């Protein structure tokens, strides 16, 4: 039995694109869909936190949204791990964070360093890593969300996630997957995904994960 950690933000948590809507049910979250697609050969642990960034502080919430600060604790809590899948970056586009896909890519590279350092320190084998470029943001009538994420100028940045993350993945010798190829953002808030598109990420990852884990 293999163990996979899905480290992400509200898209991994399964937040609703409807304002005030409930969390997507367990079966509709992408880590669950991925686990189902692996046919009992792996457990997928979902660590998705709304607002999580790659490496930026954000004290708008009563939770630690800095992905770099929390990652060692999450790794330790769920080890031993065979694979870590990281899908972050959407929140990095907020104007008060890094603003750009390029900065988010640097944050993802930092997370790779953290994983490698964590297991090197413990003299344990390191898990494989997939960097996942999140889906592309779309225009919306939800002005609240639009202004929070900086409007259309910042939305355009999300088209560059795939290019930037692939570059960092190649540099560091880790795997890459572009979730924008399988999931479309819900225009009701321009950021989050409906159930079908959330599940699609898990299903879309199945072949790559099988190949990496040899299952």
């Amino acid at each position, binding site marked *: 039995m293999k163990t996979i950690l899905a480290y992400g933000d509200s898209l991994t948590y399964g937040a609703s694109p409807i304002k005030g809507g409930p*969390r997507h049910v*367990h079966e509709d979250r992408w880590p669950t869909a991925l686990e189902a697609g692996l046919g009992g050969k792996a457990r997928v642990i979902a*660590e*998705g*936190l709304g607002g999580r960034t790659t490496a930026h502080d954000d004290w708008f*919430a*009563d939770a630690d949204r800095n992905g770099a600060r929390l990652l*060692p604790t999450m790794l*330790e809590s769920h080890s031993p791990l065979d694979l870590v899948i990281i899908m972050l970056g959407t929140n990095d586009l907020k104007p008060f964070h890094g603003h750009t896909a390029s900065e988010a890519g640097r944050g993802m590279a930092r997370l790779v360093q953290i994983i490698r*350092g964590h297991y090197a320190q413990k003299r344990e084998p390191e898990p494989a890593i997939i960097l996942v470029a999140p889906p592309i943001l779309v225009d919306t009538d939800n002005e609240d969300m639009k202004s929070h994420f900086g409007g259309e100028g910042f939305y355009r940045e999300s088209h560059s996630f795939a290019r930037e993350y692939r570059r960092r993945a190649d540099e560091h010798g880790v795997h890459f997957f572009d979730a924008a190829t399988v999931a479309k953002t819900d225009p009701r808030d321009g950021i989050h995904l409906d159930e079908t598109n959330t599940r699609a990420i898990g299903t879309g990852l199945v072949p790559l994960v099988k190949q990496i884990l040899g299952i």
Partner: protein
Amino acid sequence: MKTVLAYGDSLTWGMNAKTMARHAHEDLWPTTLEAALGGSARVINAGLNGRTTMFDDHAAGYDRNGARILPTILATFDPLDLVIIMLGANDMKTFISGSAVAAAQGVKRLIDIARTFPYEGKHAAPAILVVSPPVVEALKPSADFPLLSPRTDESRDLAKHYASVAASAGAAFFDAAMVATAASGGDGVHLDAANTRAIGAALAPVVAKILGVREARAA
């Protein structure tokens, strides 16, 4: 389907002191609890080696302060029906606090955090079950792994103080020392597989009652 968070330390993570590796998934107490609840609840294992109730410990390269991390864990797994807190063994380390009273104050702080966290949506805060950990056995002084002071018998007082804190907070309480012993674990602190499983099995009726669900038929 109910959701239960098991917030703990290495006894929840499942440290096997004889191999210094993790017990099999099936032997972890959150797993045996989930199995005993027969599909009516999912139990999330949030165990972390060395986690304390509310104290910093920079002896490891990750955050062991249970009070600092709890809000992030609550936000990650929200909505939750029940939070089970089993911490305190690490608080017995003399460089942490070595005091059962201080550990109970830490548990009180964790209850406050779980009760007052600004959960999304309008649902109520989860129920809380405080679990006093198995008694830390008298340790042979060990050069390799001097976890606790062999002089202290402090952990025997955890149950008394936890029961009191839980009662005044209106939280449920269970004493895991009634069903599990560290005597056979290898280092005086950690549990073997059978004693780890025993905690989940013993918690099942308590949890079923809190959640208003039925246990699985006895296997």
